[in-house]
Structures are given as C-alpha cells and as structure tokens.
C-alpha cells in the first residue's frame, strides 16, 4: 500500500496546485458563457428565446459522451497496466459524467415542452442519451456493490469496456429503430448550420463545462486518495502502533 502511494503523492502535489486555477477558470468561463448565452446572444428566428437552453444542453451532451469515453480509457489502463490511479480516476469521473447526462436529459425535456409540445419524445438521440445514463448507473452500482472495494473496481472496469464496445451498437440500433418510425427532420436544431453569434457562446460554455469537469474530477480524486490514505493509516496504526511512531506519514 505504501509503495503505491509514491505516484499518488506526486499526483496530490500536482493536483493541489492545479485545483484553484481550474476552479477559477471554470467559474470565469461559465459566468461569461452564461451571460453571453442568456442575455447577449440573439434569440433564434424559429425557436425564439427557448433556444438558450441549448447553451446548457449541448455542452452537457458533449461532456456526457466524452466522460464515458474517459471512464472507459481509465478502466482499460487499469485492467492492462494495473495502474492504481487509473481505477480511481475512472470511479471519480463516473458520477460527474452521470450528472452531466442527467442535466442533458432534463434540459432536453424542458426544451422539448415548448418546441415539440411534449416533455418526452422517443427521439433517437434522446433515447441513446437515456441508455447512456443507464450505463453510467450500472457502472456506479456495480463498483459499489461489493464489500471488497478492489473487486468492485475491477468488475466496474470490465463493465466500462463492455459498455464502450456496445455503445456504438446500441446507438446504431436506436437510430435504425427510430428512423423507421418517424423522420428525424422535425427534431433538428434550427437547421444544419449555426450562426457565429450563437457558436461562440456555445464554445465558451463547452470550455467552461470541460474545465468544470476537470475541477470536480480532481476534487473527487483527491478525496478518494485521502480516503485510501486514511484507511491505510488506520490499518497501519492498528497493527504496528508502538513501533510506528515517527515514521507515520502525515496527512496533508
């Protein structure tokens, strides 16, 4: 346990330094992006003011997918090289990704009410995001389902890989299923192109979301590492109390 702390210790130093910068940058980008998107950007000629939901919805959808990819990559690294940090990284990222997915679903539903006249449509994209949400929930539930945490971590890593292989198949089948039921033309956002006056705030928001993920991810990882260190300290303290005074690693 102590030998594996070597790398995490370096990580803790690095992340401790990066944390305030990431947090500050994400807050700045989100504040600028929100002001731009909600006040300055012009209303859409078809969708009116409700197009502004898109500035939250689209970055959330991008994050939902990329965080799942991140979890899968972390899981792959954990399985192949048995790197302890990779496992913790995947587990730290998953709930944040699930939250982005949830935000994407809720904002999509809120946008659908005035646009389509209903809270939920079994649109191919909406449905795939719902399935992605279930994949996240399955991963989180599996990781936490075992008394032995390392067992849960390895089972979760395998599931994330199975999920990333299946995701394109599910996506394809859902598209196939939906296009036969109804044409997708109604459900397109405004049109095939997006005006610069909307694209720029959208990109600012996307960057803000990305930084927000990085910030939350680092906070969660540091918490997970501190938890591990606490557990190690407790075991260490119980087994070799008298001899260990002085060499005990300090909590920072």
């Amino acid at each position, binding site marked *: 346990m102590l030998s594996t702390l070597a790398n995490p210790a370096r990580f803790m130093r690095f992340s401790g330094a990066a944390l305030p910068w990431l947090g500050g940058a994400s807050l700045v980008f989100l504040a600028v992006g929100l002001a731009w998107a909600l006040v300055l950007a012009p209303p859409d000629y078809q969708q009116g003011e409700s197009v502004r939901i898109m500035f939250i919805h689209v970055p959330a959808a991008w994050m939902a997918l990329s965080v799942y990819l991140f979890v899968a990559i972390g899981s792959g690294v954990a*399985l192949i090289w048995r790197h302890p940090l990779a496992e913790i990284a995947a587990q730290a990222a998953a709930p944040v990704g699930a939250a982005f997915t949830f935000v994407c679903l809720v904002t999509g539903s809120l946008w659908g009410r005035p646009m389509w006249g209903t809270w939920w449509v079994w649109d191919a994209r909406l449905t795939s995001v719902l*399935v992605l949400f*279930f*994949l996240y*929930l*399955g991963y989180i*539930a*599996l990781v936490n*389902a*075992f*008394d032995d945490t390392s*067992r849960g971590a*390895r*089972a979760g890593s*395998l*599931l994330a*890989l*199975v*999920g990333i*292989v*299946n995701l394109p*198949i*599910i996506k*394809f*089948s*859902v598209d*196939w*299923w939906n296009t*036969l039921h109804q044409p997708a033309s109604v459900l397109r956002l405004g049109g095939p192109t997006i005006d610069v006056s909307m694209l720029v705030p959208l990109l600012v928001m996307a960057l803000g979301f990305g930084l927000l993920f990085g910030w939350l991810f680092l906070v969660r990882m540091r918490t997970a590492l501190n938890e591990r260190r606490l557990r190690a300290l407790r075991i260490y303290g119980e087994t070799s109390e008298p001899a260990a005074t002085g060499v005990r690693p300090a909590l920072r």
Partner: protein
Amino acid sequence: MHPFLGLIRHDLRLAARQGGDIGLVLGFFVLAVVLFPFGIGPEPELLRRAAAGIVWVAALLAAVLSLDRLFAADYADGGLDLIALSVMPLEMAVLAKGAAHWLTTGLPLVVVSPLLGLLVNLDSAALPSLVLGLLLGTPAMSLIGAIAAALSLGARRPGVLLTLLVLPLYLPPLIFGTLAVEASLSAEGARAHLLLLAALTVAAVPLAPLAAAAALRQALD
C-alpha cells in the same frame, strides 16, 4: 467426452433433475404476455399492433430472470474453481455454460412463442419472423447475460444489479427482433433485420466469453 460437451451435458442434466428452472422461466413468459391485454385493453387491432413488442419484451424479461443462476450455484459450492482449474480454457467453459443456458431457457421460449403470438393476436403471416428472430436473438442474449452474471457474482444485491447491467445491452436484439416482425408484414421483408440479429449472435459468440471469463477470473481471485 470433450470437456466442452461434458459441461453442457452436466448443466442440462442438472436442469432436468432439479426441474423448476425451465418451468419458472416459461411460466413467467406466459404470465407476462397474458398480463398485457389486461393492461392495454382487449381490442384486437391494438393487440395486433403491439403483439411483437409484447412477446419480445416478455421473452427478454424471462431470460433476465434466469441469468443469476448461470454461475451463482457453481460459484457458491466451489465448482467454478474446479472449472477454472480444468484443462479447458475458461472462455470455452463460459461458452458451454451459455449454450446450456440457452438450451434450457432460450430454446423453450422460442418453442412456445408462436402460441403466445396467437394469444395476443399477432398476424399469422408474421409468426415465422417472430420465431426465427427469437431463435437468432436469444443466443446473443444468453451470452451477453453471461457477462453481467459473471460481473455481479458475489455482489450484495445481485438480482437488481444484474437487471440494471443487462437491460441496456439487450436493446439491440429487442429492437431488431420487433422490427423484423413489423417488416415481415410490409413489402420490405424481415431479411435485413434477421441478418442483423444473426450478426449480433455471431459477434457475441467469440467476444462475450472473453469478457465473461475475465470477469469470472477476477471473481475467483
């Protein structure tokens, strides 16, 4: 006898002597289908529209119901350790287990499905595509289910967890299966959908045992 066939025979014999399992799965399948007309109303036209979906969803849930027994008994009594130690690669053992599971759950579902199709007023012209679709799709479901069953071995609430893990992965066979039935009634024909179902099974045969065996290995560690 080759250990692969031996394992299948062992599982089939267990299923036959313990009884119960096959009956339970079939009973659930029939009951689930019979419940639908009570839920959505007895109008023949409505049932005809929904028939393929009803039968497929009920078959899928019945298949999920039996998944937790795929490895759990062998895991509990240590038989799984012996299987892992045998000369046969664990991947082949998973394939044998999956085949036995399909023979005791998937195949009976396929056999009774035309009867249930008639019960929910499915067009008799669509019956062949329903049966063929289930025949091609259920092996993939057994094998994908084996991954989830292996992953959830030893978990605190394996039943609920297994359902959550497996249902998103069962969407593609469900979609292609129901579309095949619908398409068989139109000019399009069911061929494309049935080929896609077959593709799922063909891909699952080599890939699913790899993942399930990896999951079993870390469960036995």
